[in-house]
């Protein structure tokens, strides 16, 4: 009905830098697949808990609730539980201005303190922010609020803690990433190239 306006909109997106849809589908399948598997696990755990409860009632036995543990704890953090990149940031192995260091779920006090000390003593670090599980969880819940079943299946302890770093000099990022990737207690180190006004670490 409004051909003129339609044209204007088409022109407005004509500087599209392009992308690879196959890659996008692949990433969605890999990440979404992890969420699906996790959901299935949760459902199985829920069902098992239900059976225990029913048996307990039927037998008249007062079973102490035993927290059921998923047998195969995921070793990597599902991408769905990772924070979104900040606006304007793009993934960069080399020349990253911002780095997010995600900690493993089994990280100990001492390991966390060691990483913090290393970062505080690192002259390449310009700004440093620590994101705890609770804060990560608040953001996660907001992001996935239209999937209440998924949110219900995840608790703060499932989300990674992270150190977010802004580097003084982007050219130091490959060595920086490599160093912290090696530290005990580190799950993953992600470098991004960001504008000045982005959140420190390049993630929200």
């Amino acid at each position, binding site marked *: 009905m*409004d051909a003129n306006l339609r044209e204007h*909109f088409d022109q407005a997106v004509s500087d599209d830098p392009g992308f690879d*849809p196959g890659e996008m589908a692949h990433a969605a399948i890999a990440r979404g697949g992890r969420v699906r598997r996790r959901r299935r696990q949760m459902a199985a755990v829920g069902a098992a808990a239900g059976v225990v409860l029913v048996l307990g009632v039927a037998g008249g036995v007062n079973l102490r609730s035993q927290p059921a543990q998923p047998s195969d704890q995921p070793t990597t953090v599902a991408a769905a539980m990772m924070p979104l990149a900040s606006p304007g940031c793009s993934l960069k192995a080399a020349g990253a201005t911002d780095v997010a260091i995600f900690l493993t779920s089994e990280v100990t006090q001492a390991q966390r303190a060691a990483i913090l000390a290393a970062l505080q003593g690192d002259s390449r670090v310009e700004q440093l922010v620590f994101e705890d599980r609770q804060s990560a969880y608040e953001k996660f819940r907001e992001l996935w609020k239209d999937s209440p079943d998924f949110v219900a299946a995840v608790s703060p302890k499932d989300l990674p803690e992270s150190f977010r770093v802004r580097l003084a000099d982007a050219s130091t990022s490959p060595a920086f990433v490599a160093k912290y990737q090696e530290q005990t207690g580190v799950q993953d180190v992600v470098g991004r190239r960001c504008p000045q006004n982005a959140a420190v670490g390049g993630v929200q």
Partner: protein
Amino acid sequence: MTETVTSPRVADDTTRTGGPAGWGAGRRRARAARDAEFTAFVESAATRLRRSAYLMTRDWHLAQDLTQHTFTKMYTAWDRIRTGPNLEGYSRRVLMNLVFDQQKRRSGSEIVLAEMPDQPDGTAAAGSPELRLALVDALARLSVEDRAVLVLRHAEDHSVDTVSTILGVSVSVVKMRNARALARLRTLLGEDFRLTE
């Protein structure tokens, strides 16, 4: 957790393989078929979705991110939604909800927009960088709800009814926002930016 994604090559009818040994293979084939179907959907929908995300956010990187998130969410629910009547509409709804959330979260740290150019004074030809940016900048000055209506209605050409379904608001709200947003655009861009209604 390093599962490789099977290459999309198997059709749907192979999903039910009988026999005791066929179980694992059947499931793998079912997944391959599902992944192939999903990939085809992404390939058909990604460009338009990503461009709408750009018009909503003025940021290609963010648009890419939000689109990726939309597809990831859709894949997690694919078995439930794949046969639905309106996958396209569903994908728009997921995307717009992500955009709304994203805008809400960053509204605290909103950067002040640069002065709008005093143009257009008739010198900016359609398709010129000035007008192209002017439209995107002007969109950014609308409320996110109004912007969503304009993008869905005019960049994507959805009917008023479809837009109302996607956004979960009544038809009259869509019409009202559309009229308001078009008037606002015209004010921002000047009479030179001709909008027929």
